[in-house]
């Protein structure tokens, strides 16, 4: 069963990101890999670096900034493959960001997620 872990962070948390936080994130990713549950994921740059695009009436609309101006932004995501929600929650609780941010766990729709996503992109 594959779950997305979506990390939501405030602007202040983005601004406070330092080497220690990045190292903690990397160590966490390595732990997921070592446990054999890691499918993919990454930390995201600050929402100021975001550009949003949509297609309306055949016309491409591009605007500066994230999709919605909210108090918390998507700060990173991970996809893990674990047996059930309890195991997913255990991993999410170990995420270094869990101590100050919120992590949403959502099942992937297996139907649309072929296991060979990595191969397809190679």
């Amino acid at each position: 069963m594959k779950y997305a872990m979506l990390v939501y962070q405030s602007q202040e948390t983005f601004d406070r990101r330092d080497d220690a936080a990045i190292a903690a994130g990397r160590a966490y990713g390595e732990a997921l890999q070592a446990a054999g549950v890691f499918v993919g994921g990454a930390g995201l740059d600050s929402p100021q670096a975001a550009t949003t695009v949509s297609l309306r009436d055949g016309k491409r609309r591009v605007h500066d900034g994230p999709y919605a101006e909210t108090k918390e932004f998507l700060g990173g995501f991970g996809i893990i493959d674990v047996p059930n929600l309890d195991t997913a929650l255990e991993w999410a609780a170990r995420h270094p960001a869990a101590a100050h941010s919120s992590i949403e766990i959502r099942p992937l729709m297996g139907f649309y997620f072929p296991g060979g996503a990595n191969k397809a992109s190679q």
Partner: protein
Amino acid sequence: MSKSSAHAAIEAVARDSYGRLIAYVASRAGDVAGAEDALSDAFAAALERWPTDGVPQKPEAWLLRVARNRMIDVTRRRQVRENYEKSFLQLADEAEELAATNEHFPDERLKLLFVCAHPAIDPAARTPLMLQTVLGIDAARIASAFLVSPAAMSQRLVRAKNKIRDAAIPFRVPEPPELEERVWFVLDGIYSAYTTGWESLTEVGSTHHALAADAIAIGRTLVQLMPSEPEARGLLALMLHCEARSAARYASNGEFVPLDQQDSALWSRPMMDEAENHLRSAAAFKRMGRYQLEAAIQSIHANRAVSGIINWPEIALLYEGLAQIAPGIGSLVGRAVAIAQAGNPAEGFAALEEIPASRVATYQPYWAARGHLLKMLNKKSEAQEAFTRAASLTDDPALRDYLFKRVSENA
């Protein structure tokens, strides 16, 4: 085989084994809604076949086999999450085995209770989900007990069941240290069914009050499933002690009678005895908890039936312990009243005053207790104000009348 005896057999299985059948199929399929559909088809098939073919030797195994076939059909038609394919096959094998041997199928109701009370489930759906899956109570009846429309309740239940399946909430009994917290969710879900039923005892015999009996039934099941969990026994003892008094809570003219003025001859002896037995067995585990303390407080009230007196200092002590592990406003108010009743009304009132005003603005028992303590302190006009406030915060007409009576007594 006559039609009526086949029907009687089906009803008996539904009554005695429904929760176990659902729990068994759902835990293998990871899907409560699917299990319910499959079993309802199995019961429909039994209604059709048993009157002519006779009641099978092992009715549950027969039903499970039909339910299994139905689930496999559904699986084939639907995209199923990969990890459940295996458990479906396991279910199929087990159903065959059960039919062939003399063994009773495993009781998975405890896992089901933990799923219903999982923190990932909407808190408002937890208790209804337990009532529906473990006892087989229909959504319309649950809705009327919880004072919401049947459509809203059905929707709430459907959403919770979809969440169980789609998020893959596991059917398992958590391990320590998680267990302690998760047991609390289960106990809380059961107690909330009881208090929902209890609050409106005015309508004895209503669906509302039947809920109290349902909660006790689940409480008994939980004790049977977790015999060495003292808090499960504590909860059951608490509910039994309260339920024992249902005949004494209102006078024949419908007037509300407060606990310390109830006619103890009207209390149910068998229920009090059962409660005391559970409390004693719980104490043997030497692990105190919120429900055991609450039950112990009720046990002291119950003892008035024998001794004729209420040991208030002992109650104050128990509330002291309760306020430490569960500092809800209920225990803080109870503690203040017990201190006052034990002979220290000024000290009791001071304890009441320590509770932050923001927490008690709409909490009726606080205002009733405040009125009572002010009256003990001979502050009549302030007592009147407090009783008036309490009366305006209750939705129980009998209790409202009683509180207004207290207002006029202090005039």
